[in-house]
């Protein structure tokens, strides 16, 4: 079992699944679900392999690093793959209910599955890639797939949002690609490990760093570059919003993290402080904007802006605790945000609107959905016992230990802000609304998936030691630059 090429399989399987969904659209739901299950199983296999044998390097085509492309699976990749697998499975199940109904129609389902499978491929390939040009290709695959999925909702909002998203995505990728060009021409390789060995500061490297970081920040929607995110995330179909917020933006963050830790270790403290500052601004800005929103999905989208800000707080902290905190934040946010968007999707499905003030006793009428929302909210607020709490704890600890307590203050205030908007929603879900509304039954799969994802976000708070141990495998944080 240990010599199975798991890294390859987790990439090829969803790709093949996507092709199959495309070829036999009538059976795309079944094919998609089967593929999803298969991918989860394969990621488990890969995980087992990594845990047993340590970090894996896989030379595609047998050529090895400078000439060929390497795949690399360490704890960090594995963690991201696992999140993707779990959230992906949830989204698959949810979508099988969501797209089947009259409101979206068979047609949309037919288009959803192949694209979603390709997106999954892109994510898996991205998390496994050890080659910055290959990362560019996966990034493009990811971006285009995401855009297509956003546009799937139809309507002016969604299409405009998708258009804007596409332009942003391409712009970011081009910046990244130019950076890749400069790095390649400086050091004659695109392999991360080799670059890490050879890299030494020069104007070209700074330029590459600026280009790549800026491009990735744009794709990660760090404040003030979040302008494209709310419209895209809020107007997409609910499962798509979920995977955009949970996974897609995280992918570019992942690349940023890899580059930051391995290729640009000389990136100095001032830059880290700048990123932290922007992260803090994002936390507040996203939080306030979320509080101001009157529509549920818009609110959740802005909260994503805020949550992404937390991830950047780890940069100035620059300690293992800080990094693991940020990654845990990423993890729990993925689960929680998925649940939240699913819950919003259910509300929309149920009442035909997502106006917060007219939630109209959603607690009674859709108890599972509102439970999911509330549980996810707990994790997002960072209240115990949830993944968000563990993340907050680690970040807070890192902040205090490094003597930069103000970043802890950001965390705290951000948590309060998110509590404010979470409970704004929950509060209205208890009260009665005067507005007339239609109501139609939400399929049980959709409600339960949302709930399970939310429960997962909570359970993440109880399994931290194992997951953190996973991160230790081949940890890129243990280098001396990580402090």
């Amino acid at each position, binding site marked *: 079992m240990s010599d199975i090429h798991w890294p390859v399989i987790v990439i090829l399987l969803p790709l093949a699944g996507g092709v199959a969904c495309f070829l036999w659209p009538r059976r795309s739901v079944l094919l998609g679900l089967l593929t999803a299950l298969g991918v989860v199983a394969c990621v488990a296999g890969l995980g087992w392999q990594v845990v047993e044998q340590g970090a894996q390097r896989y030379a595609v085509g047998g050529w090895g690093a400078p000439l060929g492309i390497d795949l690399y699976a360490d704890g960090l990749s594995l963690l991201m793959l696992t999140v993707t697998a779990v959230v992906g499975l949830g989204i698959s199940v949810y979508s099988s209910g969501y797209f089947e109904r009259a409101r979206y129609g068979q047609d949309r389902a037919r288009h959803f599955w192949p694209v979603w499978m390709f997106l999954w491929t892109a994510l898996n390939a991205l998390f496994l890639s050890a080659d910055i040009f290959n990362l560019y290709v996966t990034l493009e695959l990811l971006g285009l797939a995401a855009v297509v999925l956003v546009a799937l909702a139809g309507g002016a909002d969604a299409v405009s949002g998708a258009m804007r998203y596409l332009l942003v995505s391409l712009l970011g990728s081009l910046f990244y690609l130019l950076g890749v060009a400069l790095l*390649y021409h400086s050091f004659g390789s695109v392999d991360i490990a080799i670059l890490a060995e050879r890299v030494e500061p020069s104007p070209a490297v700074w330029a590459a760093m600026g280009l790549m970081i800026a491009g990735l920040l744009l794709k990660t929607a760090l404040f003030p570059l979040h302008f494209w995110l709310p419209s895209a995330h809020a107007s997409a179909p609910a499962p798509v919003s979920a995977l955009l917020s949970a996974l897609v933006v995280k992918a570019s963050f992942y690349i940023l993290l890899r580059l930051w830790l391995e290729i640009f270790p000389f990136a100095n403290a001032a830059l880290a402080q700048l990123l932290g500052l922007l992260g803090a601004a994002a936390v507040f800005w996203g939080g306030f904007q979320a509080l101001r929103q009157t529509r549920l999905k818009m609110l959740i989208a802005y909260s994503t802006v805020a949550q992404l800000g937390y991830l950047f707080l780890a940069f100035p902290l620059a300690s293992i605790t800080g990094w693991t905190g940020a990654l845990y934040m990423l993890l729990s946010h993925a689960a929680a945000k998925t649940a939240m968007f699913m819950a919003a999707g259910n509300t929309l499905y149920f009442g035909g609107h997502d106006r917060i003030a007219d939630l109209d006793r959603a607690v009674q009428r859709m108890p599972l959905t509102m439970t999911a929302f509330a549980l996810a909210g707990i994790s997002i607020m960072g209240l115990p016992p949830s993944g968000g709490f563990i993340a907050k704890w680690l970040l807070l600890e890192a902040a205090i230990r490094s003597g930069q307590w103000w970043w802890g203050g950001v965390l705290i205030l951000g948590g309060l802000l998110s509590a404010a908007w979470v409970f704004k929603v929950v509060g209205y879900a208890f009260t009665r609304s005067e507005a007339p509304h239609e109501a139609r039954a939400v399929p049980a799969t959709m409600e339960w998936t949302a709930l399970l994802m939310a429960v997962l976000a909570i359970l993440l708070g109880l399994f931290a030691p194992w997951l953190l141990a996973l991160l230790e495998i081949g940890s890129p944080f243990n280098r001396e630059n990580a402090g």
Partner: protein
Amino acid sequence: MSPAFLYALVGVGLFTLGLYALIVHAHLLRKILAINVMASGVFLVLVALAARTQGAAPDPVPHAMVITGIVVAVSATALALALMLRVRAETGRAELAEEPLE
């Protein structure tokens, strides 16, 4: 300095020109074209610098990268154009809605 650097500089120029157009033009077609110009600039940098070692055969790897990049760019452009048509069909204008969506 070999002529390769000159081409690379032209590539940089194309990149920034494309960026300028991307920012200031409202029409989506222009934006899409601007992206393409930017992409061409990047490709030019990649290819030109591959041949900067005088007297030696150009490095083939950037060429392969550029081919890959071109295909990606073509795909993206196709998608963008289709999307642009949808935007015009839905909103009546081939421009981005500048106000946030409500």
